[in-house]
Each structure stands twice: as structure tokens, then as C-alpha cells.
């Protein structure tokens, strides 16, 4: 959404330059409308359906929820599902756990990804391409396969434990699989490229003279980093954090395959409500709350960025 807003801003800048040829005008309108149409069909419409289901009662039927309008044509909606979410502590705890897990994974990705992106941006242009290729290389293999590979690595008799026991560092295998640790490894491993790429894009554009100028004016290397590099990398940091945090928050496969029964995350709850309990209305309510949890910080961020832009204008 932030990205889309940025694109819009650029569009409106471009408006003034376009000629008033009617054919061009038509294309321009279409181009402007396209993202909105996309959002309408693939986001707003499904969202409306989920919202509608979340306000219904579950029934054992096909579909498994009560219709919005009953037989007499009266509106029949209920907030029971949301009320249940608030009263049952399990959900609150799971949401919190998910937010914490996703936040920690984001911080970890940032602290690993920033030096990586910085390093790549500062190497010779010829080697940069190769290094970036290495960053995206894992995407050439199925995500599921890569998660299974981690299972093979972290098993009690997997590669890592076997090696440590062979080296005589441990006597008993360390329990890694089915722990939060394994989920972390999975999250960070999977989402690191999404952090590195936007960070690289901003850092690569940055003028190195700026850092030298700061040093020249009396800033130590660390000071210059915090005064210059960090604020200028902020758009990349924000984009990277959102790209990691949002999917990590709703991640289902990684906690399901690598996590233990006690590492319950909201994606797993959502899945279970839908497919195990077949309680579609409650599952929809879980999804709606998840969405709100994600949207609110993004909107706040966007407003903050907009005000930042105004102050500079």
C-alpha cells in the first residue's frame, strides 16, 4: 500500500507533463484505473465476502454459515464471533505470539540483511550482479522443498546434530525441530531476501560522498552512519520490514512444518478453524482481526511518511 501510494504520487506528478491527446488521455485513465480495479477485484471483493461470513453463525450445511438475510428478508448478522475472539484468551495470546514472532524475525532479518545489502552495494559493480543473483537463487527451488531441507538439517539425527556429535561437541542430539527456534530459522531464512533487496536498492543509490562529507565535518564512522546512511536508507528499511513482517505474521507453512504443537501462531489457528473445525465464521473473524492488526500500523506509517514529505516540501 505504501508502494502503491508512492506510485500514485509519481502518477500525479506525471500528469502535468502529459499532452491532452484524447487517445493518450484514455490510456492514461486506464493506466490509473488499473491498480484500483485490481484492488477492487482481488482485495476488496474477497474482503467483503470474508467480512460477511465473519458476521454469520456456523451451521452444518453447505455453505457452512447462515445467510446474511434470513428467509423473511431480514438482516441477520451477529458479532458473536468477534466477541468469542475477545473472551477466549487463546486467541489474544496467539495474536500476540504471532506479532512477537514476526517482529523478532523482522528485526533479525534487518540486522542480518542490512550489512548484507550494504556490503553488496559497496562492492564493484561487476560483482554486485553475482551477489544479488546469489540472494535470489533460493527462489529457483520450491519453497516447500527448502523448508523440508531445513527439517533434514535440524532433525535430531539430522546433518547438524550428527556433525556436532561426530565432532564430540555434544553427546545427545539437541532438540531443534518442533521448537520456536526452528520456526525462527525458517522465517528468517525465507524472508531475508525480501529485506535485502529493497535495502540494496536504496543503499546502492546513495552517494558515498555524503558519508565522507559527514566524516570530514567531524563525525566518526559510527556517527556518520547514524546521521547519514541510516536516515537515507529509511525508505528501504521500511519497505523491507513490511515485506518481512506482513507475510511472517500470517505464515502457516513454516510453523506447521518446523514448529511444535506449543508454537501456535495465528496462521495455524486460521487454518485449523477453517479446515479442521469447519467454523468458517469464526475463521473469517480471525482473518479480519489479523488484517486490522496489519493495516493499522501501515496506515500510521503512511501518514507519518506523508507528513514527513510535507515538511520537506
Amino acid at each position, binding site marked *: 500500500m505504501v508502494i502503491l501510494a508512492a506510485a500514485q504520487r509519481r502518477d500525479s506528478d506525471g500528469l502535468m507533463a502529459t499532452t491532452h491527446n484524447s487517445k493518450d488521455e484514455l490510456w492514461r485513465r486506464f493506466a490509473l484505473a488499473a491498480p484500483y480495479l485490481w484492488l477492487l477485484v482481488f482485495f476488496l471483493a474477497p474482503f467483503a465476502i470474508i467480512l460477511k461470513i465473519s458476521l454469520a453463525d456456523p451451521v452444518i450445511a453447505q455453505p457452512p454459515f447462515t445467510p446474511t438475510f434470513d428467509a423473511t428478508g431480514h438482516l441477520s448478522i451477529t458479532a458473536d464471533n468477534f466477541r468469542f475472539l475477545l473472551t477466549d484468551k487463546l486467541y489474544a495470546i496467539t495474536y500476540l505470539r504471532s506479532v512477537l514472532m514476526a517482529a523478532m524475525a523482522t528485526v533479525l532479518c534487518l540486522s542480518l540483511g542490512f550489512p548484507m545489502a550494504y556490503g553488496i552495494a559497496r562492492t564493484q559493480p561487476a560483482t554486485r550482479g553475482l551477489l544479488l543473483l546469489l540472494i535470489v537463487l533460493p527462489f529457483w527451488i520450491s519453497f516447500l522443498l527448502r523448508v523440508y531441507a531445513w527439517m533434514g538439517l535440524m532433525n535430531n539425527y539430522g546433518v547438524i546434530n550428527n556433525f556436532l556429535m561426530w565432532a564430540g561437541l555434544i553427546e545427545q542430539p539437541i532438540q531443534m525441530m518442533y521448537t520456536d527456534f526452528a520456526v525462527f530459522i525458517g522465517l528468517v531464512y525465507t524472508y531475508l531476501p525480501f529485506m535485502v533487496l529493497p535495502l540494496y536498492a536504496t543503499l546502492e543509490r546513495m552517494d558515498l*560522498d*555524503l558519508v*565522507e562529507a559527514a566524516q*570530514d*565535518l567531524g563525525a566518526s564512522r559510527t556517527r556518520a552512519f547514524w546521521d547519514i546512511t541510516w*536516515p537515507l536508507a529509511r525508505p528501504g528499511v521500511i519497505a523491507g520490514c513490511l515485506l518481512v513482517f506482513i507475510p511472517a505474521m500470517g505464515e502457516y507453512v513454516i510453523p506447521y512444518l518446523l514448529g511444535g504443537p506449543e508454537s501456535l501462531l495465528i496462521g495455524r489457528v486460521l487454518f485449523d478453524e477453517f479446515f479442521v473445525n469447519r467454523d468458517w465464521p469464526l475463521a473469517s473473524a480471525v482473518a479480519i482481526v489479523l488484517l486490522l492488526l496489519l493495516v493499522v500500523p501501515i496506515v500510521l506509517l503512511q501518514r507519518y511518511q506523508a507528513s514527513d514529505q510535507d515538511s*520537506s516540501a
Partner: protein
Amino acid sequence: MKDFIKIRGVSKHFGDFVAVDDVHLDIGKGELFSILGGSGCGKTTLLRMLAGFEIPSSGKIEIDGNDVTHQAPYDRPVNMMFQSYAIFPHMNVARNIAYGLQKEGIAKAKINKRVDEMLALVQLEDFKTRKPDQLSGGQRQRVALARALIKRPKVLLLDEPLAALDKKLRERTQFELMNIQDELGITFVVVTHDQEEAMTLSSRIAVMDKGRFQQVGTPKEIYEFPDNRFVADFIGTINTFEAVVTRMLDDRIELYSDETGTAITALGKQLFEVGQQVEVAVRPEKIFLSKDKPSNDEDTCVAGVVDDLGYLGNRSLYRIRLETGKIVQASSQNRRRSVTRFLEWDEPVWLSWRPRSAVILMD
């Protein structure tokens, strides 16, 4: 103080490449010193060593009696104005200028006062709260200058300070820079590839090539008495003739050149051997053009034909073909207002120059 900045045997290697090769230089306090050279000649590396961004591979740099060779950039009493200006894009003009003092932990009120002084110095009072992307090139240049001057450095380094400006603005800014330097008395070291800029700005110039100084001197010395072929070629245009020394006199040297087909006399006390092969150089504006043969026998006189000419408004340029086939460039001031030309294409003409205009070059 003649040796405010002392550079002693400084070299810088990047792998096998020698960027700066055993440079010795003294720069006096309050001087406006230029390092002039083409791209890749090592001038920027030398400047970066003065700023502390590069550590010399060998040699020593002293500023005001202190050895700064291994000092970090932020510890040196030196500030730099970058070619790109390197203005912090996320800070407004005032914060950019204040940055250096903030890092020193000086009280806010004092910083504000200094910032206002600097803004006045570079005439940007009305732009205090502007963001860098709302400034023109000339304004950015002045912000960069104010930012680099606010800490009152002992030495200000300027990397191609005017290269990013258009011609008119460049000429005006040149004089502004000189005035500011004069006012503050800070030693300026300018790196530039533009010989005109170096000539007008500087009290002294070092001409650099392949990591070495080819000549160090005042603009006049460099222009009128170039030490070698490179300097002569690099600064302005010059005609060169291959010649053989025929006679050594007390204050003059007599030569013969196959390229002009005449004897040439040059003033000078350099020592040559009779028969030695040298090059004689004459600046285009030192060559007189006349339709009749000049009568002064001291001067070198050669006959030729106008091969090409160009009218530049204040002066005209001529390319004259000698009887030997050699092309010589000459220029003359257009003192009289006239629409008819003094010389036309293919017209025969006499070239002459005085002994003191001829310079003997060594490689």
C-alpha cells in the same frame, strides 16, 4: 609562513597502480593553491590524502607543524568541498551548514549565530529552511562552501569547485570564491582540470601528470615559462618546433629549425650543448602577423600562407602554413572595428616573434 602545508615524498599505490608518485610540496598560509591536471593524473587522490580519506603508502603530510599523515578525517583541521557538493538531502540548508559545529558539541545559540554569519557570507539568508532539492546548482555550491567553512578550518580543500556550474555562473563564482578566501585568510587548495579556472583563481599552480608534479609556479611562470612539453601543451595552445642548438651565448641561445627553415634565437641561461636536439615553443599570441617582411633582424621571421582563420569577436585565430608545410597557430587582438578582414584565406603573410617569446622545452 611558507610551509603551512608540508607534503614530503608522498606516494599512493592502489595495487600495481601508482596514483601519486613521490610528491613534494610546500603551500604557504593563506595561499590559494591549485592542483591542475587531466583525469586520472592523481590530483584527486592527493586531495583525498590531505583530507584524510586516503592514507599515503609512503611519505608524510604536515599541516601547521602537526603530522597529520595518519589522522582520521574528523580529527583534521581541514574541511573539504566535494565535487558533487555532497549536501545532505534530508536536512535543510541551515542544518547542513550547522552539521560541523553540532559534531563539536557547541551550544545551540552559538551555532545559530555562526550559521547566520555563514549564510550572510554566501548570501543565502533567505534560503535557511529550504531543502537541498529546492536549490539551484549555484545555491547548492554556496551551501557546500558555507558548510565547509563554518568550522573555520586551517585548510579548505575544494574538489572541482566550479565544474558543475554553467559558464556565466562559473565566472562570477570564481571571483566570489577569491573574495571569500581573501576575507577569511584560510588556505585554499583547489583541484581542477580547468586551466582557465586555475589561472584566474590561484596564487600558485601545480601541474600534475601521471602522479607527479610537472611544474609548480605562479600562473604567469607556468604560462610563460613552461618547464616541459607537457606543461606547455596542457596550459593554453602552443606551437613547438624541433630545433638544434647552433651557438650558446651569454644570455641567449641560437638554434636552427628544419621545421621553420630558419634560425631561431631564444633568450635564456639554460645550459645546452651545441648540436643538442631540443624543442622551441612559441605561444600563438606572441606571433606577429604582417604583410611586409619585418625588418628587425633579432626577431625570427618566417613566411607562410593563411590556411584557415577564425573570428572570435575579441580576437582572431589563424592557422598559417609555412613553406616547409608546418602549420603554425597565431592569434591577434581585433583592436580596430572593421568588417573587412586584415587577412584572407591563401594570402601570403609574414610571421615574426621576439627572442624572449621563444621558450626552450625539455622533456
